[in-house]
C-alpha cells in the first residue's frame, strides 16, 4: 500500500486548495492503473447482460473528441483546472451545444446566473427561453419540465436547494417516475433534476436536508451523487443523455473544490461506483461530502496500520452492487458512511442490499454511520455533531476490524 502512495505522489502535481481535496486527487490518477482491470469484467448482480470491457477491449465512441491517447496517464495530459460548479457548467454547456432540445429551468438560473453560479453566462449565450427563469413555484415548474419532456425536450430542472423540491414531490414521484410505465412505454421523461442538498455551514434545518432517502423508493428514476469536479461533469453529461429521469444530488459545500480535468470530452456511467482508494481490510462505502471525511479518516487509519478500501458509490439508485460486491468479497467487512439520516436513509437500503446479496462473504455485521435523526441545528457545535466526523469513522473501523 505504501508503494501506491509514493507512486502517485511522484506522478501527480497536486494543486489543492483544501485538505480533503488532496486525498481525492491522488487516487483519481491511480484509477488508471490496476483498478480499472478489477472493475472491467463481469456483471453487476442486478442485471444480466455481459459487459465485456477490459482495459484492452474499450469501445471508444465517436463522440470522444480525440480517439487516441488511452495509454497516456492523466497527470501528464494538460487538462485544465476548474472548480466543481464550473465543471457542472462545462458539462451543461457542452450538452446544450450538442443537442438543441436541452434546456434549463429553475429559479434565478438565467439572468442571475444561478444561485451557485452553475448556469452563469448561459442565458446570454442561449437565450431566455432555453435558460428559463421561473417564478418560485417548484411544483408547477417541475411539472412543466416533465410535460415538456413528454414531447421530446430534455429539460434540466434546478431546485435552488434540494429541500425545495419537496414541494414538487408529487410531480417527481407520480409523473416523472411513473409515466413511462403507466403509459405502457409511450412517453419517455428524459429530465435531469438537480440541485444542492446536504448539511452546509449553519444554514438551518430547512436548508440542510438530504432528500436522497425520500426519493429512493420512487420507481422509474435514477439517482446519482457527484463529489468531485471530474465526476460532476461526467455525471451531468450522462444524466442529460440518459432517457430516464435522473436526479443529480450536488452538495452545498463541494462547489468550490478544485481539480484538473481532461480537455477532451468524457461521459461517465450513471450506474457505476468509483474506487477511490483500494485496500484490503475493510470496505468503506460513501458518497458526496462524506467521501472527504472518509479520506481524512483514511489518513489516520493508514498511520495506524489499517488498509481501508474506499468506494464512492455515486449511483444511489440503482446501487452498483458489482463493484461493491467485489470489494466485500475481498475485505469481508463493510462500513457505510453517509450524510443521510439513520432512519430510512441510503445507508439503510445499502445495508439491506449487501446483506441480501453478500451475507456469506461478511465476517462482521455491516456498520452504518449516518447523521443523527434530528433536524439540523443552527449552532455550529451542534451541527458538527449531527453529521459523521472523521474521528467517528476511525473508531468504527477500529471496532470493525477487531
Amino acid at each position, binding site marked *: 500500500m505504501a508503494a501506491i502512495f509514493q507512486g502517485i505522489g511522484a506522478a501527480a502535481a497536486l494543486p489543492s486548495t483544501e485538505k480533503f481535496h488532496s486525498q481525492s486527487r491522488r487516487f483519481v490518477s491511480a484509477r488508471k492503473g490496476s483498478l*480499472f482491470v478489477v472493475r472491467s469484467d463481469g456483471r453487476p448482480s442486478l*442485471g444480466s*447482460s455481459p459487459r465485456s470491457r477490459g482495459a484492452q477491449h474499450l469501445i471508444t465512441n465517436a463522440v470522444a473528441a480525440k480517439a487516441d491517447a488511452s495509454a497516456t496517464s492523466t497527470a501528464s495530459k494538460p487538462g485544465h483546472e476548474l472548480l466543481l460548479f464550473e465543471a457542472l457548467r462545462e458539462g451543461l454547456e457542452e450538452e446544450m451545444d450538442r443537442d438543441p432540445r436541452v434546456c434549463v429551468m429553475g429559479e434565478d438560473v438565467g439572468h442571475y446566473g444561478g444561485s451557485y453560479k452553475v448556469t452563469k453566462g448561459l442565458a446570454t449565450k442561449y437565450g431566455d427561453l432555453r435558460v428559463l427563469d421561473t417564478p418560485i413555484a417548484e411544483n408547477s415548474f417541475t411539472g412543466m419540465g416533465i*410535460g415538456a419532456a413528454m414531447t421530446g*425536450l430534455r429539460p434540466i430542472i434546478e431546485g435552488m436547494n434540494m429541500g425545495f423540491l419537496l414541494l414538487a414531490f408529487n410531480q417527481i414521484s407520480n409523473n416523472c417516475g411513473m409515466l*413511462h410505465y403507466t403509459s405502457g412505454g409511450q412517453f419517455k421523461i428524459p429530465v435531469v433534476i438537480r440541485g444542492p442538498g446536504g448539511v452546509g455551514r449553519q444554514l438551518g434545518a430547512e436548508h440542510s436536508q438530504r432528500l436522497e432517502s425520500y426519493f429512493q423508493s420512487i420507481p422509474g428514476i435514477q439517482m446519482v451523487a457527484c463529489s468531485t469536479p471530474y465526476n460532476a461533469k461526467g455525471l451531468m453529461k450522462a444524466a442529460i443523455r440518459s432517457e430516464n429521469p435522473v436526479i443529480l444530488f450536488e452538495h452545498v459545500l463541494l462547489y468550490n473544490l478544485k481539480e484538473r480535468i481532461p480537455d477532451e470530452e468524457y461521459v461517465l*456511467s450513471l450506474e457505476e461506483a468509483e474506487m477511490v482508494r483500494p485496500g484490503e481490510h475493510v470496505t468503506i462505502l460513501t458518497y458526496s461530502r462524506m467521501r472527504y471525511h472518509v479520506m481524512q479518516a483514511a489518513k489516520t487509519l493508514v498511520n495506524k496500520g489499517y488498509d481501508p478500501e474506499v468506494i464512492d458509490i455515486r449511483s444511489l439508485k440503482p446501487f452498483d452492487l458489482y463493484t461493491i460486491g467485489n470489494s466485500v468479497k475481498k475485505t469481508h467487512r463493510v462500513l457505510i458512511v453517509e450524510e443521510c439520516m439513520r432512519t430510512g436513509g441510503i445507508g439503510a437500503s445499502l445495508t439491506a442490499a449487501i446483506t441480501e446479496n453478500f451475507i456469506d462473504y461478511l465476517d462482521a455485521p455491516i456498520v452504518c454511520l449516518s447523521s443523527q435523526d434530528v433536524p439540523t441545528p443552527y449552532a455550529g457545535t451542534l451541527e458538527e455533531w449531527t453529521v459523521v466526523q472523521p474521528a467517528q469513522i476511525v473508531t468504527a473501523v477500529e471496532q470493525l476490524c477487531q
Partner: protein
Amino acid sequence: MALSTSLRSNLIKPLTALTALSSTHRLRSPFSSSADDATVLTIETSVPFIGHNCEPPSRNVETTPKELLGFFHDMALMRRMEIASDSLYKSKLIRGFCHLYDGQEAVAVGMEAAITRRDCIITAYRDHCIYLGRGGTLFECFSELMGRQSGCSKGKGGSMHFYKKENGFYGGHGIVGAQIPLGCGLAFAQKYSKDETVTFAMYGDGAANQGQLFEALNMAALWDLPAILVCENNHYGMGTAEWRAAKSPAYYKRGDYVPGLKVDGMDVLAVKQACRFAKEHALKNGPIILEMDTYRYHGHSMSDPGSTYRTRDEISGVRQERDPIERVRKLILSHELSNEAELKSIEKEIRGQVDDAIAQAKESPMPDPSELFTNVYVKGFGIEVAGADRKEVRGVLP
C-alpha cells in the same frame, strides 16, 4: 379505427334514400338531406358566451350536415361506451377506479371538431371519451379497462392512464390538478419548437382550487405559452358542490389577468366555437381559460352513487333539458338531415360495435408476468457506459 371513417361508411348508404326537403327557417340555407359537407348551416347556440377580459365569439356557429351527424354518432358512441363500462364494472371485470364521462360528451366532441391532431390535449382521470375522440379504438379502451395486454397502456395504466402519444393525447392523470403544469409544459415545448399548435389542459371544478393551477397560469401568462385551460365544471368536486368548495365558482374569471370564456358545455356547437376562438387567441396572445358548464350523470366514480349530494330530480332534469345528444338529435330532425329511424339504426349499430369490442377485449390475454418489469426505465438501464480512462465507452446495460 377512427370514428370518422366508420361514420362515412355507415351513413352514406341509409341517407341516399331520403328526399330533399327545403327549409323554411331564417339563417338556414336550402340543402339536400344527404350527409354532405358542402351545405353550411348556421345555428345559434342556446346560451350566449360570457367573456372575462375578452370579447366573446359570436353565438352563430357554422356547421354542416355531415358534421352534425358526426357529432351525433361520436357522442352516442361515447355514451354507449360509458354505459357499457358501468355494467362491466358492476360485473367486476373492471376494478379499482372508474370515472365515467356520460353527460359531458359534448366537450370532448366539440373540442375535437375545432382542432387538429397536432394540438395536444391533456386531462385528468375522466379520460375514456377524450381518448376515443383522439382516435383511440373501443377495443383498446375496453382492453385497458380490463387490464389486458392489448390496452392502450398495455394494461399497466388502467382507467386513469389512457394515453395516445401519436395523436397528441397526453392522458390520463390520477392526481387532481397535477396535469395542469404538465399541460403548460406541453405548451412550453410547442412554443420552444415553434409548432404553431396549442395545448388544451383540462381539469375539473374540483381542481380549480389547486395552487398549481395558479402557478402554472402565472407562468403561461408570463411567457405567452399557447395553453388553453379548460375547466369542465360539472358542479361537483366528487361529493362537494362547487359553492361549498370555492368562494368564487366563476372559474372563467379566476384567472384574473388571463382572459376567460364561459361556455355551455352541453352544447357541442358552442364548445366547438369556443375552442376555435381559444385556439386563435392562444396562438396570438397566450393563455385563456374556458369554463365548460357541463354535468355528469354518474357519480364521481363507480363507487359513488351520485345521489347523496344531489337530488335525482336534478339529474333527470338536466337529462331532459340539456342532454347533449338529445340536443343534436333535435337539431338533426328539425333540419331534416335524417329521420328517427336512421338515427335509431345508428345507435343500434353503435351498440353492436361496443358489444363486439367488449367481447373481443374479454377474449384478449392478460399481460405476461415479464411485463411487470418492462418500461420501468427506458431500455432497462441501457445508457452509455464510460470507463475510468476518460473516454466514452459504449456498453449497454440491460
